[in-house]
């Protein structure tokens, strides 16, 4: 999975491309953990380029969100494709995670 990381203001923008499954969840978790440990805990992830998320992928995002929140940050999401969004709705994560419609809105919410 390709994961692009950029800074915009005090916010770290994470843009993965590819499927988020058992095979890529560890890579995602490691990337987010390293950012948080470096003090970059205000995170926005744009999922526009992710067409598939399974429970392993959700687990990686939830773990990072908890880790970020524990140090005063958060992991905010945007750009969820319809089928990906339905998995977040099904597991009710849509209610507990900060989900925005697009990147601008998510970054501005900080």
């Amino acid at each position, binding site marked *: 999975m390709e994961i692009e990381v950029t800074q915009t203001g005090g916010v770290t923008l994470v843009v993965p491309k590819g499927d988020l499954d058992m*095979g890529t969840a560890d890579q995602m978790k490691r990337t987010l953990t390293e950012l948080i440990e470096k003090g970059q805990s205000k995170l926005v992830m744009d999922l526009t380029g992710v067409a*598939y998320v399974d429970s392993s992928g959700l*687990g990686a995002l939830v*773990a990072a969100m908890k880790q970020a929140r524990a140090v005063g940050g958060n992991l905010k999401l945007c750009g969820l494709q*319809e*089928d990906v969004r339905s998995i977040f709705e099904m*597991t009710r994560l849509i209610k507990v995670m900060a989900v925005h419609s697009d990147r601008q809105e998510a970054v501005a919410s900080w």
Partner: protein
Amino acid sequence: MRAETLVITSESRELARVRAWLGEQLARRGLDSHAQSALQVAVGELTTNSIKHAYEGRAGEPIHISVESREDSVVIQVEDFGKPFDPSRYRHPDLDEMNESGVGLYIVKRLADELTYDLARERGTRWTLVKYQAGTRPRSA
């Protein structure tokens, strides 16, 4: 349309191949993109369970995935030959908690119209998932 079977080995890199093959099978059987996507997730979760739990992460073990069309439905089976699924260990996840694991089978149950498993075998588990065509799901299903 006759049943088709894909045989993979128990490695996470195989999951993308399962998704591609299944998408092609379901498209040929007339399922729309949302139904394809839902079944790709459901079958992906069952395959992941076989890799993680039945084979406990061991690579190179066989997993069989088959798709069969019936008049009113598509039937998909995922079969492994490892440690059998133990239903007594399944816990419905508390969705008010932020779960880092334990939601895979819950997702499958939500996406399938019917989900059964067969443990009466020498080894392993065979999962059978049924997805009815729109408007054909029996009341009892």
